[in-house]
């Protein structure tokens, strides 16, 4: 059980002078699944990128804290796992090499058992030494889950996690979400009803668009 | 061309005139630029009114 908490204070974002969302406030503690829904182009991906610290908000701030201490931007990346269709892994390396380099750059211990367990779970163990270039899009998506979970993050951000997956893959994703949400925070940005069923809390971006 | 050069060389005050002229041209170019920008703004404002 972790003591991770995520808090958004008066978050707003505009692209140039176009408003994406405004006065967004929420708070999650310890664990649970929070869904983010909204039409295409409503800023779901922008919001999850801001939460992950990749984009900066135009106003307000996101506070990540662990055990009551705020996490600085320099260290944030090691607490976060991120999956999205627009994430690309290094195609010239094999799955195993990718994960190996990621662990080294992150400076976390490369946990052989855990990686093998995850590879088995996502049915990639037989192909772990093939170059990522040779993978199908569904396999790449599954590899991204391993990338997101390998360092046991306390905040897992999933942007349209079930895209490119067959029904078996979707089921295993749902299982993972259920499992992980017991010990960490999961943020799920999606439009699919099935995905949003899992959420204990839902954030509708339409509610944060008015200019008043 | 050679005559012009010699004339300017002897009557250096005209060089000063040319230089002042160049400076004013530059300032004018900037004014034209702003003028263009403001005209665009004006057009957009009027366009909005027509739509309403």
């Amino acid at each position, binding site marked *: 059980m972790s003591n991770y908490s995520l808090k958004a204070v008066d978050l707003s974002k505009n692209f140039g002078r176009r408003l994406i969302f405004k006065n967004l406030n929420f708070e999650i503690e310890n664990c649970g699944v929070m869904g983010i829904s909204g039409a295409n182009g409503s800023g779901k991906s922008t919001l999850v990128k801001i939460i992950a610290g990749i984009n900066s908000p135009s106003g307000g701030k996101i506070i990540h804290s662990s055990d009551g201490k705020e996490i600085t931007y320099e260290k944030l990346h090691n607490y976060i796992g991120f999956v999205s269709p627009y994430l690309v892994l290094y195609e*010239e390396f094999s799955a195993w090499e990718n994960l190996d380099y990621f662990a080294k750059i992150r400076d976390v211990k490369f946990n052989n058992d855990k990686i093998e367990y995850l590879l088995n779970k996502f049915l990639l163990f037989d192909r772990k030494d093939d170059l990522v270039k040779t993978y199908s899009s569904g396999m790449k998506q599954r590899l991204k889950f391993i990338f997101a979970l390998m360092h046991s993050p306390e905040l897992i951000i999933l942007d349209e996690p079930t895209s490119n997956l067959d029904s078996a893959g979707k089921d295993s994703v749902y299982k993972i979400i259920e499992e992980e949400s017991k010990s960490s925070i999961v943020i799920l940005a999606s439009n699919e009803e099935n995905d949003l069923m899992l959420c204990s809390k839902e954030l509708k971006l339409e509610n944060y668009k008015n200019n008043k | 061309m050679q005559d012009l050069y010699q004339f300017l060389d002897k009557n250096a005050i005209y060089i000063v005139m040319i230089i002042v002229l160049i400076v004013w041209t530059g300032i004018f170019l900037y004014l034209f630029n702003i003028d263009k920008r403001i005209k665009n703004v004006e057009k957009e404002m009027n366009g909005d009114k027509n739509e309403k």
Partner: protein
Amino acid sequence: MSSKAYALYKKDFYSELRTRYAINALVMFIIVAISVILFSIGNEKITQSLTSGLFWVVIFFSAMSGLARAFVSEEERGTSLTLHLIAAPSTIFSGKLLFNLILVFCMNIIIAILYAALFDSFIIKNFALFIVSFVLGNVGLATASTIIAAIISKAGAKGTLYPVLSFPILLPLILTAVQLTLLANQGASFGDAKFELAIVFCYDVIMLTGSYLLFDFVWKD
């Protein structure tokens, strides 16, 4: 911190070995540039100052074709988001800088050897001075090109923009480095070159701190 940057460098290094993103273009460029210069000189004797100028012309343009790759390749393949997720900006900057430094050193050592072999007037009389100025010049070149590569990777028209942006930034460095190479070829002592050495050293320090501080802004969208 340094181990992370080293890991990032190693990833870049092996990635480069597999994709040959920069190396092929670089090697071909060096060969083409030097042979064009040799053809245009023909049998004429050229002065030492011209040779040291041409030396840095080749280095400048080879750097143009190779160094921008560090960030542009990540951005083109869409992997910069992945980098975002696994490392802090300071790690990324240090790792990429290390990669560019190694690349610049390899490239310039090859150019220097080719020059010494092919040009009669390129005789280094004060070898120690040449090495010191060579190292300082390369550090400055790698630093300035790393931050500019980061800037253009986020902009459009990547290929054409790089020389345009880096030339004014590198101009003071290159002018001084040409001067230093000339002094080394003429056999001047360290005392004669202390002014130029100080300039290049200051340039390196200022560029390093400046780009290190500004990289956060470039990297974070």
